[in-house]
């Protein structure tokens, strides 16, 4: 059961085992965050852990276990596409959550969207007014 750490194989196995366990713990952390955090925006913060760092660690574990070089480009492609697509869904979900008031305003330290929303609302009101804003 106890491996001998004389060759590089055992070390690679140990590193990939650590990667796998830590990558799995990222998922557990996301689940705990989903259950414990109070509102949508803080839950989104927890939900990104397994999507980026967890996936990176697990893909690195695959690359270490396979002991080949040709598998690494495919793993990099998988991770790059995850990095490209996760912000899109996070942006859409966060914007929709802001719009539908699924957030606790007292927990925010800064609300940079507030000014933009106010300005757009004022502009829309000016356009809707009967004299065309003049």
């Amino acid at each position, binding site marked *: 059961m106890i491996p001998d750490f004389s060759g590089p194989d055992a070390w690679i196995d140990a590193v990939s085992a650590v990667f796998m366990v830590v990558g*799995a713990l990222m998922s557990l952390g996301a689940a705990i965050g989903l259950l414990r955090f109070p509102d949508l925006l803080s839950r989104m913060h927890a939900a990104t852990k397994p999507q980026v760092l967890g996936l990176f660690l697990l893909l690195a574990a695959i690359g270490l276990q396979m002991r080949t070089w040709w598998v690494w480009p495919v793993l990099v492609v998988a991770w790059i596409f995850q990095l490209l697509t996760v912000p899109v869904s996070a942006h859409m979900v966060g914007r929709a959550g802001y719009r539908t008031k699924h957030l606790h305003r007292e927990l925010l330290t800064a609300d940079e969207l507030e000014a933009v929303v106010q300005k757009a609302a004022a502009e829309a009101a000016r356009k809707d007014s009967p004299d065309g804003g003049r």
Partner: protein
Amino acid sequence: MMHVVLAVTAVIFSLAAAGAIIRIARGPSLLDRVLAADVLLAILGGALCIDMAVNRHLNNLMLVVAISIIGFIGSVTVARFVADRRVKPNDS
């Protein structure tokens, strides 16, 4: 050593999936459920990766790549629907 890792990660992933499913069932809003479904998809991809790494095969690699490419479409679609329903509160 790999079998110990497999058992430990199986337990961790099971707990994580249970937490995500609880949030899907309980979530106060639709967006919470979408977010938990995203996490559940990430947990599924992670489990596929663990399977490949422990058993040293690459049968699921294309599935992982496909999940990472198109996995965001579902949550974007649902978020779009939520935005469309609430964007004009004075209509009708």
